[in-house]
Protein backbone atom coordinates (compact mmCIF):
# COMPACT_ATOMS: atom_id res chain seq x y z
CA UNK A 1 0.00 0.00 0.00
CA UNK A 2 3.00 2.32 0.33
CA UNK A 3 3.37 3.15 -3.41
CA UNK A 4 -0.32 4.09 -3.57
CA UNK A 5 0.06 6.29 -0.51
CA UNK A 6 3.02 8.05 -2.11
CA UNK A 7 0.99 8.53 -5.28
CA UNK A 8 -1.93 10.07 -3.39
CA UNK A 9 0.52 12.22 -1.49
CA UNK A 10 2.12 13.52 -4.72
CA UNK A 11 -1.25 14.42 -6.24
CA UNK A 12 -2.43 16.17 -3.10
CA UNK A 13 0.81 18.12 -2.90
CA UNK A 14 0.47 19.27 -6.51
CA UNK A 15 -3.14 20.30 -5.94
CA UNK A 16 -1.89 22.41 -3.05
CA UNK A 17 0.84 23.98 -5.23
CA UNK A 18 -1.60 24.82 -8.02
CA UNK A 19 -3.94 26.33 -5.46
CA UNK A 20 -1.21 28.57 -4.09
CA UNK A 21 -0.29 29.65 -7.61
CA UNK A 22 -3.79 30.44 -8.84
CA UNK A 23 -5.77 31.70 -5.86
CA UNK A 24 -5.68 35.26 -4.51
CA UNK A 25 -7.70 34.86 -1.33
CA UNK A 26 -5.06 34.87 1.41
CA UNK A 27 -7.04 32.50 3.62
CA UNK A 28 -7.50 29.96 0.85
CA UNK A 29 -3.81 30.14 0.01
CA UNK A 30 -3.15 29.44 3.64
CA UNK A 31 -5.38 26.40 3.51
CA UNK A 32 -3.54 25.23 0.39
CA UNK A 33 -0.31 25.34 2.39
CA UNK A 34 -1.99 23.21 5.03
CA UNK A 35 -3.00 20.78 2.30
CA UNK A 36 0.63 20.53 1.16
CA UNK A 37 1.73 19.83 4.72
CA UNK A 38 -0.91 17.11 4.91
CA UNK A 39 0.34 15.54 1.71
CA UNK A 40 3.84 15.43 3.12
CA UNK A 41 2.48 13.86 6.31
CA UNK A 42 0.87 11.14 4.24
CA UNK A 43 4.16 10.23 2.64
CA UNK A 44 5.83 10.27 6.06
CA UNK A 45 3.27 7.78 7.30
CA UNK A 46 3.81 5.70 4.19
CA UNK A 47 7.56 5.64 4.79
CA UNK A 48 7.04 4.78 8.44
CA UNK A 49 5.59 1.47 7.19
CA UNK A 50 8.98 0.82 5.63
CA UNK A 51 11.52 2.32 7.98
CA UNK A 52 9.89 2.30 11.43
CA UNK A 53 7.93 4.68 13.63
CA UNK A 54 10.24 7.71 13.35
CA UNK A 55 8.15 8.86 10.42
CA UNK A 56 5.15 9.18 12.71
CA UNK A 57 7.23 11.29 15.09
CA UNK A 58 8.00 13.63 12.23
CA UNK A 59 4.31 13.88 11.42
CA UNK A 60 3.72 15.03 14.96
CA UNK A 61 6.41 17.67 14.57
CA UNK A 62 4.88 18.81 11.28
CA UNK A 63 1.47 19.08 12.92
CA UNK A 64 2.75 21.23 15.76
CA UNK A 65 4.58 23.46 13.30
CA UNK A 66 1.40 23.68 11.22
CA UNK A 67 -0.56 24.68 14.29
CA UNK A 68 1.97 27.39 15.12
CA UNK A 69 1.94 28.54 11.53
CA UNK A 70 -1.85 28.72 11.45
CA UNK A 71 -1.92 30.80 14.63
CA UNK A 72 0.69 33.31 13.46
CA UNK A 73 -0.51 33.38 9.87
CA UNK A 74 -4.10 34.01 10.76
CA UNK A 75 -3.02 36.71 13.18
CA UNK A 76 -1.14 38.35 10.31
CA UNK A 77 -4.19 38.07 8.07
CA UNK A 78 -6.36 39.66 10.74
CA UNK A 79 -3.86 42.49 11.16
CA UNK A 80 -3.73 43.08 7.40
CA UNK A 81 -7.51 42.96 7.18
CA UNK A 82 -7.82 45.59 9.88
CA UNK A 83 -5.58 47.87 7.87
CA UNK A 84 -6.71 47.20 4.29
CA UNK A 85 -10.17 45.67 4.79
CA UNK A 86 -9.40 43.00 2.23
CA UNK A 87 -7.67 39.65 2.05
CA UNK A 88 -7.17 39.88 -1.70
CA UNK A 89 -3.46 39.47 -2.31
CA UNK A 90 -3.68 41.84 -5.27
CA UNK A 91 -4.22 44.65 -2.80
CA UNK A 92 -1.64 43.55 -0.28
CA UNK A 93 1.46 45.01 -1.86
CA UNK A 94 2.99 47.31 0.70
CA UNK A 95 6.45 46.90 -0.80
CA UNK A 96 5.26 48.60 -3.98
CA UNK A 97 4.70 51.88 -2.14
CA UNK A 98 1.77 54.26 -2.24
CA UNK A 99 0.41 56.48 -4.96
CA UNK A 100 0.00 60.23 -4.73
CA UNK A 101 -3.77 60.46 -4.88
CA UNK A 102 -4.35 57.78 -2.34
CA UNK A 103 -6.98 59.03 0.12
CA UNK A 104 -5.72 56.65 2.75
CA UNK A 105 -4.99 58.46 6.04
CA UNK A 106 -1.31 57.47 5.89
CA UNK A 107 -0.88 59.29 2.60
CA UNK A 108 1.94 61.44 3.98
CA UNK A 109 4.12 58.37 4.13
CA UNK A 110 3.41 57.45 0.54
CA UNK A 111 6.13 57.27 -1.99
CA UNK A 112 5.32 59.10 -5.20
CA UNK A 113 5.58 56.53 -7.95
CA UNK A 114 6.12 57.10 -11.66
CA UNK A 115 3.02 54.98 -12.26
CA UNK A 116 1.72 54.52 -15.81
CA UNK A 117 -1.73 55.58 -14.70
CA UNK A 118 -1.59 58.24 -12.00
CA UNK A 119 -5.00 57.30 -10.60
CA UNK A 120 -4.20 53.68 -9.89
CA UNK A 121 -1.67 51.97 -7.72
CA UNK A 122 -3.71 49.24 -6.03
CA UNK A 123 -2.36 50.19 -2.66
CA UNK A 124 -5.72 50.29 -0.96
CA UNK A 125 -9.39 49.88 -1.53
CA UNK A 126 -9.80 53.42 -2.89
CA UNK A 127 -7.54 53.03 -5.89
CA UNK A 128 -8.01 49.42 -6.65
CA UNK B 1 -33.29 63.34 39.41
CA UNK B 2 -30.20 62.98 41.49
CA UNK B 3 -28.11 59.86 41.20
CA UNK B 4 -27.10 58.12 44.37
CA UNK B 5 -24.18 55.73 44.40
CA UNK B 6 -23.82 52.94 46.91
CA UNK B 7 -20.62 50.94 46.94
CA UNK B 8 -21.26 47.48 48.28
CA UNK B 9 -18.63 46.06 50.59
CA UNK B 10 -18.69 42.31 50.32
CA UNK B 11 -17.09 40.18 53.01
CA UNK B 12 -14.52 37.88 51.48
CA UNK B 13 -16.34 34.73 52.58
CA UNK B 14 -19.34 35.62 50.44
CA UNK B 15 -17.39 35.83 47.19
CA UNK B 16 -16.65 32.14 46.78
CA UNK B 17 -18.37 30.85 43.68
CA UNK B 18 -18.11 27.17 44.53
CA UNK B 19 -19.61 27.54 47.98
CA UNK B 20 -22.44 29.71 46.69
CA UNK B 21 -23.07 27.12 43.98
CA UNK B 22 -23.27 24.28 46.47
CA UNK B 23 -25.68 26.28 48.60
CA UNK B 24 -27.87 26.94 45.58
CA UNK B 25 -27.86 23.29 44.62
CA UNK B 26 -28.93 22.34 48.13
CA UNK B 27 -31.88 24.71 47.83
CA UNK B 28 -32.98 23.35 44.47
CA UNK B 29 -32.64 19.78 45.73
CA UNK B 30 -34.86 20.61 48.66
CA UNK B 31 -37.51 21.88 46.25
CA UNK B 32 -37.03 18.87 44.01
CA UNK B 33 -37.91 16.46 46.79
CA UNK B 34 -40.64 18.62 48.26
CA UNK B 35 -43.95 16.86 47.54
CA UNK B 36 -45.97 20.06 47.79
CA UNK B 37 -46.54 21.44 44.31
CA UNK B 38 -48.22 24.69 43.47
CA UNK B 39 -49.60 23.94 40.00
CA UNK B 40 -53.38 23.95 39.55
CA UNK B 41 -54.42 20.89 37.57
CA UNK B 42 -56.74 23.10 35.60
CA UNK B 43 -59.43 21.12 33.80
CA UNK B 44 -59.95 18.86 36.78
CA UNK B 45 -59.27 21.34 39.51
CA UNK B 46 -60.94 24.67 39.02
CA UNK B 47 -60.33 28.00 40.56
CA UNK B 48 -62.91 29.11 43.12
CA UNK B 49 -64.37 32.28 41.67
CA UNK B 50 -65.14 35.25 43.82
CA UNK B 51 -68.88 35.84 44.30
CA UNK B 52 -68.31 39.18 42.60
CA UNK B 53 -66.60 37.70 39.53
CA UNK B 54 -68.00 39.29 36.37
CA UNK B 55 -67.91 36.92 33.40
CA UNK B 56 -70.08 36.28 30.36
CA UNK B 57 -73.75 37.24 30.55
CA UNK B 58 -76.82 35.30 31.37
CA UNK B 59 -80.48 36.19 30.95
CA UNK B 60 -82.75 34.96 33.75
CA UNK B 61 -86.17 33.57 32.93
CA UNK B 62 -89.52 33.64 34.70
CA UNK B 63 -91.53 30.59 35.69
CA UNK B 64 -92.99 30.28 32.15
CA UNK B 65 -89.54 29.98 30.65
CA UNK B 66 -89.68 33.43 29.08
CA UNK B 67 -86.97 36.05 29.47
CA UNK B 68 -87.51 38.43 32.37
CA UNK B 69 -86.44 41.30 30.16
CA UNK B 70 -89.05 43.96 29.45
CA UNK B 71 -86.98 45.75 26.79
CA UNK B 72 -86.84 48.96 28.76
CA UNK B 73 -83.61 49.94 27.01
CA UNK B 74 -81.66 50.90 30.10
CA UNK B 75 -78.84 48.42 29.56
CA UNK B 76 -77.89 49.52 26.02
CA UNK B 77 -78.18 53.04 27.33
CA UNK B 78 -75.70 52.59 30.14
CA UNK B 79 -73.35 50.16 28.43
CA UNK B 80 -70.00 51.98 28.12
CA UNK B 81 -68.74 49.60 25.44
CA UNK B 82 -71.95 49.82 23.44
CA UNK B 83 -72.09 46.07 23.05
CA UNK B 84 -75.79 45.41 23.70
CA UNK B 85 -78.18 45.46 20.79
CA UNK B 86 -81.84 45.61 21.80
CA UNK B 87 -84.92 45.84 19.56
CA UNK B 88 -88.07 46.06 21.71
CA UNK B 89 -91.40 44.51 20.75
CA UNK B 90 -94.87 44.38 22.28
CA UNK B 91 -97.36 41.50 22.29
CA UNK B 92 -101.18 41.84 22.00
CA UNK B 93 -101.55 42.17 25.79
CA UNK B 94 -99.21 45.15 25.81
CA UNK B 95 -96.27 43.35 27.41
CA UNK B 96 -92.98 44.58 26.14
CA UNK B 97 -90.40 41.95 25.30
CA UNK B 98 -87.09 41.96 23.39
CA UNK B 99 -87.41 41.04 19.72
CA UNK B 100 -83.65 41.05 19.35
CA UNK B 101 -81.28 40.96 22.29
CA UNK B 102 -77.63 40.44 21.43
CA UNK B 103 -74.49 40.99 23.44
CA UNK B 104 -71.13 41.09 21.73
CA UNK B 105 -68.93 39.49 24.36
CA UNK B 106 -65.79 40.65 22.58
CA UNK B 107 -66.75 44.29 22.94
CA UNK B 108 -68.02 43.86 26.45
CA UNK B 109 -65.70 45.10 29.18
CA UNK B 110 -67.54 43.21 31.93
CA UNK B 111 -68.20 46.30 33.99
CA UNK B 112 -71.51 44.89 35.20
CA UNK B 113 -73.47 48.14 34.75
CA UNK B 114 -76.17 46.29 32.78
CA UNK B 115 -76.87 44.05 35.74
CA UNK B 116 -76.82 46.99 38.11
CA UNK B 117 -79.20 49.06 36.05
CA UNK B 118 -81.69 46.34 35.11
CA UNK B 119 -85.01 47.01 36.91
CA UNK B 120 -86.27 43.43 36.39
CA UNK B 121 -82.99 41.76 37.40
CA UNK B 122 -83.07 40.00 34.06
CA UNK B 123 -79.59 40.45 32.59
CA UNK B 124 -76.70 39.32 34.73
CA UNK B 125 -72.99 38.95 34.38
CA UNK B 126 -72.02 35.45 35.38
CA UNK B 127 -69.39 33.58 37.34
CA UNK B 128 -67.92 31.87 34.36
CA UNK B 129 -64.70 32.11 32.39
CA UNK B 130 -64.41 29.09 30.11
CA UNK B 131 -65.60 30.46 26.81
CA UNK B 132 -63.87 29.56 23.60
CA UNK B 133 -65.25 29.61 20.07
CA UNK B 134 -63.98 28.83 16.61
CA UNK B 135 -65.04 32.20 15.17
CA UNK B 136 -65.55 35.77 16.26
CA UNK B 137 -69.22 35.48 15.32
CA UNK B 138 -69.61 32.85 18.00
CA UNK B 139 -69.06 35.49 20.64
CA UNK B 140 -72.17 37.42 19.74
CA UNK B 141 -74.62 35.87 22.17
CA UNK B 142 -78.24 36.11 21.14
CA UNK B 143 -81.25 35.91 23.46
CA UNK B 144 -81.63 32.14 23.26
CA UNK B 145 -78.04 31.57 24.10
CA UNK B 146 -78.15 34.05 26.95
CA UNK B 147 -81.18 32.25 28.34
CA UNK B 148 -79.58 28.84 27.90
CA UNK B 149 -76.59 29.68 30.12
CA UNK B 150 -76.73 27.95 33.48
CA UNK B 151 -73.73 29.24 35.37
CA UNK B 152 -74.24 31.10 38.65
CA UNK B 153 -74.66 34.81 38.38
CA UNK B 154 -72.53 37.49 39.88
CA UNK B 155 -73.47 38.98 43.20
CA UNK B 156 -72.88 42.65 42.65
CA UNK B 157 -72.93 43.28 46.32
CA UNK B 158 -73.26 41.32 49.47
CA UNK B 159 -76.98 41.41 50.32
CA UNK B 160 -76.12 41.58 54.02
CA UNK B 161 -73.88 44.55 53.46
CA UNK B 162 -75.24 46.39 50.41
CA UNK B 163 -73.04 49.46 50.78
CA UNK B 164 -69.80 47.59 51.09
CA UNK B 165 -69.15 48.56 54.66
Amino acid at each position, binding site marked *: *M*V*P*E*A*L*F*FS*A*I*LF*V*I*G*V*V*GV*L*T*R*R*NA*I*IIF*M*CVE*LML*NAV*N*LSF*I*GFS*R*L*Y*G*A*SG*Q*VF*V*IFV*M*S*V*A*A*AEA*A*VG*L*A*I*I*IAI*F*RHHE*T*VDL*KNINLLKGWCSNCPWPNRVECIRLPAPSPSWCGCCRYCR | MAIQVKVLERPIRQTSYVRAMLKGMAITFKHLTNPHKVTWQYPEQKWDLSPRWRGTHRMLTDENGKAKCVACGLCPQICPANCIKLVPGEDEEGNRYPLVYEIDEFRCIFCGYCQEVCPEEAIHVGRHYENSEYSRAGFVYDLERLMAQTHPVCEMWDPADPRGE
Partner: protein
Amino acid sequence: MPNGFVYEFLFYLFGLTAIVSAAIFVTRRNAVAAALWLVNTMFCLAALYIMMDAQFVGAIQVLVYAGAIMVVFLFVVMLLNLGLPPSVADIKSKGARIIALVAGLAMLAELLVLARQKLPAELPWLPRETSVTTPITEPLFRTYLLPFEITSVLLLVAIVGAVVLAKRRS
Protein backbone atom coordinates in the same frame (compact mmCIF):
# COMPACT_ATOMS: atom_id res chain seq x y z
CA MET C 1 -6.03 -9.08 7.41
CA PRO C 2 -4.38 -5.93 6.02
CA ASN C 3 -4.24 -7.36 2.53
CA GLY C 4 -7.84 -8.38 1.95
CA PHE C 5 -10.00 -7.05 -0.83
CA VAL C 6 -12.04 -4.90 1.57
CA TYR C 7 -8.87 -3.30 2.85
CA GLU C 8 -7.66 -2.42 -0.63
CA PHE C 9 -11.06 -1.16 -1.68
CA LEU C 10 -11.28 1.12 1.36
CA PHE C 11 -7.72 2.33 0.87
CA TYR C 12 -8.41 3.41 -2.70
CA LEU C 13 -11.79 4.83 -1.71
CA PHE C 14 -10.30 7.07 0.96
CA GLY C 15 -7.37 8.07 -1.21
CA LEU C 16 -9.52 9.02 -4.18
CA THR C 17 -12.03 10.83 -1.96
CA ALA C 18 -9.15 12.81 -0.48
CA ILE C 19 -7.93 13.81 -3.93
CA VAL C 20 -11.39 14.66 -5.26
CA SER C 21 -12.29 16.78 -2.28
CA ALA C 22 -8.91 18.51 -2.43
CA ALA C 23 -9.60 19.35 -6.07
CA ILE C 24 -13.04 20.69 -5.16
CA PHE C 25 -11.46 22.62 -2.30
CA VAL C 26 -9.06 24.60 -4.49
CA THR C 27 -11.80 25.55 -6.93
CA ARG C 28 -14.39 26.81 -4.41
CA ARG C 29 -14.86 30.57 -4.27
CA ASN C 30 -16.76 30.46 -1.01
CA ALA C 31 -14.13 30.25 1.74
CA VAL C 32 -16.39 28.35 4.14
CA ALA C 33 -17.26 25.68 1.59
CA ALA C 34 -13.58 25.41 0.66
CA ALA C 35 -12.64 24.91 4.30
CA LEU C 36 -15.22 22.14 4.65
CA TRP C 37 -13.92 20.30 1.61
CA LEU C 38 -10.44 20.56 3.07
CA VAL C 39 -11.76 19.09 6.33
CA ASN C 40 -13.12 16.20 4.29
CA THR C 41 -9.68 15.65 2.76
CA MET C 42 -8.15 15.63 6.21
CA PHE C 43 -10.64 13.04 7.41
CA CYS C 44 -9.78 10.78 4.51
CA LEU C 45 -6.10 11.23 5.30
CA ALA C 46 -6.77 10.29 8.93
CA ALA C 47 -8.48 7.14 7.69
CA LEU C 48 -5.46 6.37 5.51
CA TYR C 49 -3.13 6.86 8.49
CA ILE C 50 -5.17 4.42 10.52
CA MET C 51 -5.13 1.94 7.65
CA MET C 52 -1.34 2.20 7.59
CA ASP C 53 -0.99 1.21 11.25
CA ALA C 54 -0.61 4.74 12.60
CA GLN C 55 -3.72 4.97 14.79
CA PHE C 56 -2.24 7.50 17.14
CA VAL C 57 -1.32 9.89 14.34
CA GLY C 58 -4.74 9.34 12.76
CA ALA C 59 -6.48 10.39 15.95
CA ILE C 60 -4.13 13.35 16.36
CA GLN C 61 -4.81 14.32 12.74
CA VAL C 62 -8.53 14.65 13.43
CA LEU C 63 -7.93 16.30 16.78
CA VAL C 64 -5.40 18.88 15.61
CA TYR C 65 -6.25 19.56 11.98
CA ALA C 66 -9.99 19.07 11.81
CA GLY C 67 -10.73 19.93 15.42
CA ALA C 68 -8.46 22.89 16.00
CA ILE C 69 -6.71 24.37 12.96
CA MET C 70 -9.66 24.31 10.60
CA VAL C 71 -11.99 25.59 13.30
CA VAL C 72 -9.65 28.54 13.74
CA PHE C 73 -9.73 29.10 9.98
CA LEU C 74 -13.52 29.06 9.98
CA PHE C 75 -13.50 31.35 12.97
CA VAL C 76 -11.37 33.89 11.13
CA VAL C 77 -13.49 33.62 7.98
CA MET C 78 -16.58 34.30 10.04
CA LEU C 79 -14.97 37.02 12.12
CA LEU C 80 -13.83 38.95 9.05
CA ASN C 81 -17.05 38.05 7.22
CA LEU C 82 -15.21 36.78 4.15
CA GLY C 83 -17.48 33.86 3.48
CA LEU C 84 -19.49 35.03 0.51
CA PRO C 85 -17.92 34.93 -2.95
CA PRO C 86 -17.59 38.24 -4.74
CA SER C 87 -14.98 39.64 -2.37
CA VAL C 88 -11.87 38.21 -4.02
CA ALA C 89 -11.16 37.70 -7.71
CA ASP C 90 -8.75 34.93 -8.57
CA ILE C 91 -5.97 34.99 -11.11
CA LYS C 92 -7.87 34.97 -14.37
CA SER C 93 -5.32 35.41 -17.14
CA LYS C 94 -4.81 32.35 -19.30
CA GLY C 95 -1.05 32.67 -19.28
CA ALA C 96 -0.82 32.52 -15.51
CA ARG C 97 -3.13 29.54 -15.39
CA ILE C 98 -1.11 27.68 -17.99
CA ILE C 99 2.08 28.43 -16.10
CA ALA C 100 0.48 27.10 -12.90
CA LEU C 101 -0.70 24.00 -14.70
CA VAL C 102 2.70 23.35 -16.27
CA ALA C 103 4.47 23.89 -12.98
CA GLY C 104 2.05 21.54 -11.28
CA LEU C 105 2.41 18.83 -13.91
CA ALA C 106 6.20 19.13 -13.83
CA MET C 107 6.21 18.77 -10.09
CA LEU C 108 3.81 15.83 -10.29
CA ALA C 109 6.05 14.09 -12.82
CA GLU C 110 9.06 14.70 -10.64
CA LEU C 111 7.35 13.33 -7.55
CA LEU C 112 6.07 10.29 -9.40
CA VAL C 113 9.51 9.52 -10.75
CA LEU C 114 10.88 9.81 -7.24
CA ALA C 115 8.11 7.55 -5.97
CA ARG C 116 9.05 4.87 -8.47
CA GLN C 117 12.28 4.18 -6.62
CA LYS C 118 12.68 0.60 -5.46
CA LEU C 119 11.07 0.44 -2.06
CA PRO C 120 12.11 -1.97 0.68
CA ALA C 121 9.61 -4.50 2.01
CA GLU C 122 6.92 -3.31 4.43
CA LEU C 123 7.38 -3.86 8.13
CA PRO C 124 5.07 -6.30 9.93
CA TRP C 125 2.02 -4.86 11.62
CA LEU C 126 2.02 -4.27 15.32
CA PRO C 127 0.42 -7.08 17.31
CA ARG C 128 -3.01 -6.12 18.61
CA GLU C 129 -2.05 -6.42 22.27
CA THR C 130 0.63 -3.71 22.34
CA SER C 131 -0.21 -0.13 23.15
CA VAL C 132 -0.29 2.00 20.00
CA THR C 133 1.55 4.87 21.66
CA THR C 134 4.64 2.92 22.69
CA PRO C 135 6.40 2.80 19.29
CA ILE C 136 6.06 6.58 18.95
CA THR C 137 7.08 7.57 22.46
CA GLU C 138 10.43 5.80 22.25
CA PRO C 139 11.85 7.92 19.38
CA LEU C 140 9.89 11.02 20.43
CA PHE C 141 11.27 11.25 23.94
CA ARG C 142 14.69 9.67 23.39
CA THR C 143 16.08 10.12 19.88
CA TYR C 144 14.29 13.35 19.03
CA LEU C 145 14.08 14.91 22.48
CA LEU C 146 15.83 18.11 21.43
CA PRO C 147 13.59 18.77 18.40
CA PHE C 148 10.62 18.04 20.65
CA GLU C 149 11.70 20.67 23.14
CA ILE C 150 12.44 23.13 20.35
CA THR C 151 8.94 22.55 18.98
CA SER C 152 7.48 23.43 22.36
CA VAL C 153 9.48 26.67 22.38
CA LEU C 154 8.29 27.32 18.84
CA LEU C 155 4.68 26.92 19.93
CA LEU C 156 5.25 29.32 22.81
CA VAL C 157 6.77 31.87 20.45
CA ALA C 158 3.84 31.39 18.07
CA ILE C 159 1.34 32.00 20.85
CA VAL C 160 3.08 35.21 21.91
CA GLY C 161 3.44 36.31 18.30
CA ALA C 162 -0.20 35.67 17.48
CA VAL C 163 -1.36 37.59 20.53
CA VAL C 164 0.90 40.54 19.74
CA LEU C 165 -0.09 40.60 16.07
CA ALA C 166 -3.82 40.31 16.55
CA LYS C 167 -4.05 42.67 19.49
CA ARG C 168 -5.91 45.85 18.67
CA ARG C 169 -3.74 48.80 19.56
CA SER C 170 -5.75 51.51 21.23
